[in-house]
């Protein structure tokens, strides 16, 4: 029996504005992401990559088409359902988006404590272990302003992964990093995700990191175009 898809997108379209100003941004998107898969999404600026990511992440309401994420239908889902879903997705942003007034440990704890209803869950211990895993054990009590760009992005990875999500959505996570720390961050993300069977949907313009992908997708004017990756077995239906 094939594994349930982590993300299943069918006939998904999206527009911004209304009337004269109406602009189609996504057109009839089909996409399936399976458990543990690393998918890279590329495409020119303004082609709709971020919009697709925000829809999959439950950050925007679906306008048209069908969207299932982690087995939950997001088309027609109410706000509360979207909020609950987001707790099970790891988000990594271009800007690290850490909370300035919290130290590293507290930043990761903020994400970890969303799961404190889980049996045996110790927010602080989980956060500490995750910070060790991204190699920042010695910086637990540092504030973001005192960390380098690469370190901040690692904290962001720890925050995204501490809830043990099955899906990571990353939007240009290396864009603000130099090539070396960019590479480190991506390797770390891939390593941790593979260890836990986490699927990754990664938007990037950075051609140096394409090798981590199982599959590459290309976006052009709101349409998805398949392109060559290491493996082309998951053709869209």
């Amino acid at each position, binding site marked *: 029996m094939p594994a*349930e*898809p982590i993300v*299943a997108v069918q006939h998904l379209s999206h527009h911004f504005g209304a009337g004269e100003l109406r602009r189609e941004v996504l057109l009839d998107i089909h996409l399936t992401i399976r458990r543990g898969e690393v998918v890279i999404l590329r495409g020119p600026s303004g082609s709709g990559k*971020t919009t697709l*990511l*925000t829809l999959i*992440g439950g*950050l*925007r309401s679906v306008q048209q088409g069908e969207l*299932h994420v*982690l*087995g*939950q*239908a997001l088309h027609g889902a109410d706000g*509360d359902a979207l*909020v*609950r*879903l*987001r*707790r*099970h997705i790891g*988000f990594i*942003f*271009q800007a690290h*988006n850490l*909370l*300035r*007034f*919290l130290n590293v440990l*507290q930043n990761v*704890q*903020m*994400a970890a*404590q*969303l799961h*404190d209803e*889980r*049996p*045996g*869950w*110790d*927010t*602080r211990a989980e956060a500490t272990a995750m910070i060790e895993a991204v190699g920042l054990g010695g910086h637990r009590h540092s504030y973001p302003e005192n960390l380098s760009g690469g370190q901040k992005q690692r904290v962001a990875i720890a*925050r995204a992964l501490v809830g*043990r*999500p*099955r899906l990571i959505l990353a*939007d240009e996570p290396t864009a603000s990093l130099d090539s070396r720390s960019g590479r480190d961050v991506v390797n770390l993300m891939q390593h941790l995700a593979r260890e836990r069977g986490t699927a990754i949907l990664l938007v990037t313009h950075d051609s140096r990191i394409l090798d981590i992908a199982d599959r590459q997708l290309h976006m052009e004017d709101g349409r998805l175009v398949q392109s060559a990756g290491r493996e082309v077995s998951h053709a869209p239906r």
Partner: protein
Amino acid sequence: MVDQPYFDVPERSGPAAKPRRRRRIFLAWLQMSREKTRLRVAVLGITFAAVLMMVQLGIRDALFDSATLLHNSLAGEVFLLSPHSASVIAAQPFSDRRLHQTLALPEVQSASGIYVGFAQWENHRTHLARNLYVIGFNPDDRSIAIEGVERYAKAIKQADTVLFDVYSRPEFGTAEIGVDFTRQLPITTEMNPIAGSLRRVTVGGLFQLGPTFGGDANVITSDVNFRRLFPGRKKGSIDIGVIRLVPGTDVERAIRKIRAHLPADVQVLTKDEFKNVDRSYWASSKPLGYIFNLNVIMGFLVGAIIVYQILYTDVSEHLAEYATLKAIGYQDSELLKVVLQEAGLLALLGFIPAFLIASGAHLAISNATHLPIAMTPARAITVLVLTLAMCLISGALAVRRLKAADPADIFN
């Protein structure tokens, strides 16, 4: 494809009996304390507002309390008043027959009449005349329990001799009277009673009562001297009846009996009821109560505006962070709680210094004016509630700014 979500639950390692821990990050405090200057400004603003409210309420209460200074000094449990008297400073005389009638009851030990009126008092040094409050009583009745009055009771048995209140406003020559009296210099001046006849009087003693709403200064004299000053007053008409009950008598029952015994042309009151007559007279019939309430509202508004500004700026500056929290799965209500917690914390942080400052201010005011002003638990709690309300209302308004935190924007 199933519609049943399959969210991950971590595999557990170790014994299942591990206790659940719910240590939550105290976001409100961490966020606020990181911006020290802003925190200080906010606390200062709230402190200012709370001090303003406390002092205004304190002075208001003190003025209303001062209206009952005389009431507190009358030695009795039951009081008679004309039904037309709205206040002891606007007392309507009634017949002292009502007073004597109560003596027929076994519960009544003694009954005595008090006379009140206003007179112009000439400052014995500057010769400027001002209005003061004149109280007359029978010195043998001991119905006024003020230390100085008891000590100098003999003096006022002499004709045209009065006792002067050393807590009176200074314009009456109060300090000079005090000095001259201790040096045993004779103090004579003119008293010109309203609806009475001008007389030269001698100060035969001093006592401490305090200025009231009605009068900036007080003199006390004997009933005989009082009638000399106010010859137009009908004989046998008094302003206040003071009844002392036999010790151990149930006051409520005695009052019921006295009421049944007397016709309805006189009010029979307990001490508290008697005091309330004057308190409500000042609270309702004069613009003073209104002015103090207005000042309290002003303090409230000033504080609310400061807190609103601070919280609004705070939320605005952290919009990206709030959006991030929404994106990773925090409910709007949880973020709303953070802002309200900040408001509540600010209220408490501002209230504590305000309480200390206002307590000090009360002491200073009471020393300077002899107004009976003091911090009471009830007033402290009232202002704490007002301060909390002020902060929470502002917080609830500033929370609307959270709507601008759109988690869909965070990828940009």
